[in-house]
């Protein structure tokens, strides 16, 4: 038990599912409340803001489709990060792995000479491989040279972003683009089919949903998943049990990076149909996916829900920009607030908080 001012904290060993859900919702609610002050400071009535956001996203077919479109890359990256985080591998590099996938898909689309119905599947295969490769490098660095995974995965994002820039300003700049920094448009056989009157490239969405289910299966039912969880929970016990740290780390980052790579394929083949500036290929999906995975608390299936939530926030950002004349970056503020409060409620998950009563010890307040 610990005391801090008028509060008493008592350690709680295992938070219940209801507690986790309840406190996560509480964090989102708190972020919404703080957000309304930001709207207010901007001269926009928060009530009006939330009404507009609700009507234009959840309240229309167009809005719902926009949510889905944003959900796709978040889901794929988020599920990948769930695997990495379960092994306590802090992969901050989904953004770079996504771009690696986009680059590989572009190569298949424009330069491989392959055409016809095998082209799209091949783009996905190459995209997965490129993302996986970009993920495996930090895994090797960590296990072989003890390089910090947070730093290396983060730095790899910049390397890949500048690589993409170099490609589109240099060797891959499209001859038909009149000097703009794009590649040429992909031929039609490299375009993903869309749900009608929307930008939802449904094959990628399907891949994302299947990936979430497969990863759930891997984590709970397979030897690899078991070893991932042992390594994540207790590296000492993993060593004692003879589990190979190198093997598990490589598998984890292969899957994590590969899934992010698939997200990159979806963005270029489904929406842009060419490779362009890295911050246009991805609006920071690889970073937002960190929050998606954190909020999912290690469950790939929960990542479906949390990626939808952040898809909604992205879609709302577009609306805020168009309807309320506020900058799109407001989504970044909101994402930051949610992450901030989520980390804040950790305390409530593992500590029961009460008020000190004079002479009477303490009384439970936020306990469940």
């Amino acid at each position, binding site marked *: 038990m610990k005391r801090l001012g008028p509060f008493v904290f008592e350690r709680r060993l295992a938070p219940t599912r209801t507690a986790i859900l309840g406190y996560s919702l509480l964090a989102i609610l708190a972020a919404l409340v703080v957000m309304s002050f930001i709207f207010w400071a901007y001269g926009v009535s928060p009530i009006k803001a939330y009404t507009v956001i609700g009507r234009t996203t959840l309240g229309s077919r167009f809005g719902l489709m926009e949510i889905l479109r944003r959900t796709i890359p978040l889901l794929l990256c988020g599920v990948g990060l769930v695997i990495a985080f379960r092994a306590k591998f802090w992969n901050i590099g989904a953004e770079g792995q996504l771009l690696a996938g986009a680059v590989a898909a572009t190569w298949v689309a424009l330069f491989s000479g392959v055409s016809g119905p095998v082209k799209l599947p091949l783009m996905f295969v190459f995209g997965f491989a490129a993302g996986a490769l970009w993920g495996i490098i930090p895994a090797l660095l960590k296990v072989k040279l003890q390089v910090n995974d947070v730093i290396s995965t983060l730095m790899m994002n910049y390397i890949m972003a500048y690589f993409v820039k170099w490609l589109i300003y240099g060797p891959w700049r499209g001859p038909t683009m009149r000097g703009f920094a794009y590649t040429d448009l992909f031929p039609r056989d490299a375009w993903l089919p869309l749900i009608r009157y929307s930008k939802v490239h449904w094959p990628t969405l399907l891949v994302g949903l299947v990936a979430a289910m497969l990863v759930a299966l891997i984590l709970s039912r397979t030897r690899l998943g078991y070893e991932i969880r042992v390594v994540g*929970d207790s590296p000492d*016990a993993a060593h004692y049990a003879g589990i190979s740290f190198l093997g598990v780390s490589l598998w984890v980052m292969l899957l994590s990076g590969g899934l992010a790579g698939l997200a990159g394929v979806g963005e270029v083949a489904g929406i842009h149909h060419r490779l362009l500036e890295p911050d246009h290929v991805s609006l920071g999906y690889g970073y937002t996916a960190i929050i998606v995975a954190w909020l999912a608390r290690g469950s790939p299936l929960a990542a479906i829900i949390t990626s939808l939530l952040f898809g909604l926030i992205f879609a709302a950002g577009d609306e805020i920009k168009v309807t309320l004349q506020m900058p799109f970056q407001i989504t970044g503020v909101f994402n930051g607030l949610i992450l901030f409060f989520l980390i804040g409620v950790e305390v409530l998950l593992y500590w029961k908080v009460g008020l000190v009563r004079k002479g009477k010890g303490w009384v439970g307040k936020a306990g469940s």
Partner: protein
Amino acid sequence: MAEKRTDAHPDSLASHQNVALLMRDITKVFPGVVANDKVTFELKVGEVHALLGENGAGKTTLMNILYGLYQADSGEIYLYGKRVRIRSPRDAIRHRIGMVHQHFKLVPRHTVAENVVLGLDGAPFLAPARAVEDEILQLGERYGLKVDPKAYIWQLSAGEQQRVEIIKALVRGADILILDEPTSVLTPQEVEELFKILARMREEGHSVIFITHKLDEVMEVSDRVTVMRRGKVVATLSTADVNKPTLAKMMVGREVVFRLKKVACERGQEALVVEDLWALSDRGLPALKGISFSVCRGEILGIAGVAGNGQKELVEVITGLRRATRGKVFVLGDEVTNENPRRIADKGVAHIPEERLKRGIVPEMSVAENLILKRHHRSPFCHGFFLNLRAVKRFAHHAIEEYAIMTPGPDTPAKLLSGGNIQRLILARELSGEPALVIAAHPTYGLDVGATEQIRQILLEQRRRGAAILLISEDLEELMSLADRIAVIFEGEIMGEVSPEAATLEEIGLMMAGEKRRVRR
């Protein structure tokens, strides 16, 4: 410097002029274990008082209560005859008590002076480190605590860092100094210097509490000694009136609590052979220096010794968790030196690890999942890529019943079990594959009487079944009642081997203190 108080007090002992500290009837209960059971401890002004006991005897708990890190459940503390309440280390410092922890609490990237001044009341706002530099040099002069105030901590040896800790306490005006196992990280030369410093401090009128489990040190440095065992005080004696064998006997306990029925062993095939084994400790110093022995099926070889004499490294090398720098390990006739831990485990080697919570279980995972650790990659629990969850569950129910593991169910996270049940879980897992060799490191350490007895019975049952058992323990009573042979380890070497029927506690105690070597040469 000491404030002597002479107010009349009902307790004649406490009001005695010479008594610096009296802790009376201190009781502290942790979940599942009584760490201090009505402990009474008295410290005189200007004495070095050794607090002797095995690991887990309750020494550190008692001192943590004195230093305000824990609150006692009951009992009283008197300083110079006056009752005090110590709620935090800050209170303790105010009462002129200083503590040097076993693991130093220093900021490596700061200088000596910066560390000394950190958190010091009354330090100036500007250039605080410079203000204490002179004082550090003066203290160094007075007590032989030589250390450069401008040096960075990371540049210092363990012995020098310890001096910084002592200076920290002295600058804060400590009259009573607690040293928690101060020699465990020191080289023999540094130990010598520490003892000189302690002698100086005694001359200056400081009172020192010296926590240790090493008999030599008690004899060399202390005026009086209090022996603790299993949370209780066995005796407080003047060091001049005792000898090492007596202390050893008090420390480990003479009476055998359990009369275990032990059938005569039938020695079978050699299950473990160790030849001239050398290995380094985590700090890179030689921890094993040419160890050789063998264990046969159907017998228990006990390894006795004071903690930190190479037992941990020995277990780790045999199980593949640490590299041998020289020598060979054979299991059932096949060489397994420096093989990976999985291959050694698959050969039929069970390992009941010393660090139960850190190594023995995966705390967040369920009891059922913990029960298949190490065998999760083999039939029947795993076929190809997939786990056979039905087999996992069936095995869990079976193991929970057979080993009487008290758990709400197989899906409960292992971290919610009590210490005894965690150990039952580990035994159930390690022994269910009918291993040829069982390596048990401190299997009953910190457990209550019931669990201890059950686990000893299980080990004897394994022996009857024909397993070879290597039992590492600090508990001589346990070794005497279980082992067929006892080898004593001291500073990485085997001092000798005795049979428990023929040996006396005194003899083993002397070997534990490294005496035998002198006799042999």
